[in-house]
């Protein structure tokens, strides 16, 4: 009986409440969006100001100086930084994927002694600040192999598995039902064929996620290039060069912001293209424990 009464009364009250909630939630949403987006807006507006106006308190440009972007682009070294960053991020990503896939597969699917210990060590390595081992690594690459002033000390280790990628990919491979693998084995596939023919096609989203994260990590890396490339401007990457760019043009906020926009742009475009992989990757590391 009470149910009938509720059904009669509910619609109007509920609709009313729903509208209020809709307004409330979206005003909060817009406020939050402003916090996340306004920095990009001011960044962009300053990047098209004139040299003089960039030094004032003005928030919007009087004249739109698109030429700032050309000026930044033609700054000596800028193209070299691009080439180096693409080399580091591109080659590093390919090597990481090639070397991490078999390890993640073994950790997810093989039963062997020391598997738990290996996994513990992978996680420890993942949590290790790079500064902990940087002194011996620097001495090894710079003094023993004489590779300082190049990006090779950053790229070569990527050919030997990356702890974060191994961990993330293992989490992903655990979600593939064992039955698919058993079926492949019953059909007489060896482990290599099973991995290549059955697992890899199903693991594409996981592989996309580690590739994306590895690419971002290399693109954004500052510490690595600072240690190995800082003495040789021909080996600087965008992240490292950008900071010194500010140093060299320390009064020109407009040019510095234009350069900042140019360094952010590829990452943002890549994110729009690969949003699904990003969400999948973040969720896997955090939730599917």
């Amino acid at each position, binding site marked *: 009986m009470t149910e009938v009464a509720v059904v009669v009364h509910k619609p109007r009250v509920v609709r009313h409440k729903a509208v209020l909630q809709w307004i409330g939630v979206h005003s909060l949403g817009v406020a939050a*969006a402003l916090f996340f987006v306004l920095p990009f807006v001011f960044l962009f507006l300053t990047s098209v100001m004139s040299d003089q106006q960039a030094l004032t308190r003005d928030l919007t440009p009087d004249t739109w100086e698109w030429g700032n972007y050309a000026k930044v682009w033609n700054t000596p070294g800028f193209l070299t930084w691009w080439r180096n960053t693409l080399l580091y991020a591109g080659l590093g990503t390919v090597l990481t994927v090639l070397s991490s896939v078999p390890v993640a597969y073994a950790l997810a699917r093989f039963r062997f002694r020391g598997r738990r210990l290996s996994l*513990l060590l*992978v996680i420890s390595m993942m949590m*290790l600040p790079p500064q902990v081992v940087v002194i011996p690594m620097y001495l090894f690459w710079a003094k023993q192999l004489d590779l300082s002033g190049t990006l090779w000390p950053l790229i070569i280790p990527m050919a030997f598995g990356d702890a974060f990628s191994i961990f993330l990919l293992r989490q992903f491979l655990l979600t593939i039902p064992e039955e698919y693998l058993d079926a492949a084995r019953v059909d007489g596939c060896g482990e290599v064929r099973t991995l290549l023919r059955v697992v890899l096609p199903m693991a594409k989203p996981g592989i996309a996620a580690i590739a994306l994260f590895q690419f971002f990590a290399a693109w954004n890396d500052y510490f690595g290039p600072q240690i190995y490339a800082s003495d040789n401007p021909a080996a600087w990457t965008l992240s*490292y060069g*950008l900071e010194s760019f500010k140093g060299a043009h320390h009064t020109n906020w407009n040019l510095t912001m234009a350069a900042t926009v140019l*360094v952010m742009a590829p990452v943002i475009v890549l994110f729009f293209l690969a949003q699904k992989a990003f969400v999948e990757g973040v969720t896997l590391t955090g939730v599917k424990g």
Partner: protein
Amino acid sequence: MTGTHPLRAKRRRSALRTAAFMSPWLIGFSFFFAYPLLSTVYFSFTRYDGFRPPVFNGLGNWTYVFTDYPLFWPALWNTLWLVVAMVGCRVVFGLGIGLLITKIKTGTGIYRTLFSLPYLAPPVAGTLAFVFLLNPGTGPVNVLLDAVGLPTPGWFTDADWSKPALTVLALWGVGDLMVIFMAALLDVPKEQYEAAELDGAGAWSRFRHITLPNISPIILFAVVTGVIQVMQYYTQPLVAGKVSAGVIGGSGRQFEPGYPDKSTLTLPQVVYNAGFQRFDYGAACVVALVLFALSMAVTALLMRRRGGLIEAGD
């Protein structure tokens, strides 16, 4: 005899197969983790500048770092400050944004994209942008604060405000936590909310008694990984300090880190300063080992409290 032989051969084959699949990481672990870690321990007991061979000097570096090295204790204090404020604010804010987005029914995709974007902005670029935005005299933030009659802090140029400024920058990049919390919130069983609603529980009571207990493992995960991020915090405080101090030139070897007044100094910066600015590799290795001990203690907490990280799939 004839029965055991094929079995043993099979076992050997399977061990070889495991070794083959694991080999990239076995090499990587030995060369880029075990060997340098042991070397760091060894160098921490030697006087070493990278040119003359290392000389054993016992606990000399250790007592030097803990008593006389002027950068060590400020960096440790800053780490503690940033752990409490930055991790706390990020978790609360990330959860709030996650909740908000699960309540929004229309345009979720657009909101999620806008909220995630800053997380991906390269740290150097994001930091440069914030040094500009928070510029005390002409930056847009202080211009806006001034316009509505609020006080205008010195942000990155004031030792009392530089860590809050870094915290605002970290809040801007909260997109990763938002995604994790969103996934966790969507996993909370709907029936529990419906049952509570029938019992007449209000919104706060539902959050307190259903949402929080359900997502508490994720909150712990976010706190622990947040602490680890603070241990590794390097690029943002360094770039913010250098750029606000107006340091010119690339390598910055002459830069006294932590501007203003060591307020943005972190332990990784101390390792860099000791090793690559002062060429005191022994002291740098001591600081590196302190960093190692802290990180591993936090990691151990993560794995103890959340065995799932390992157990899954066993």
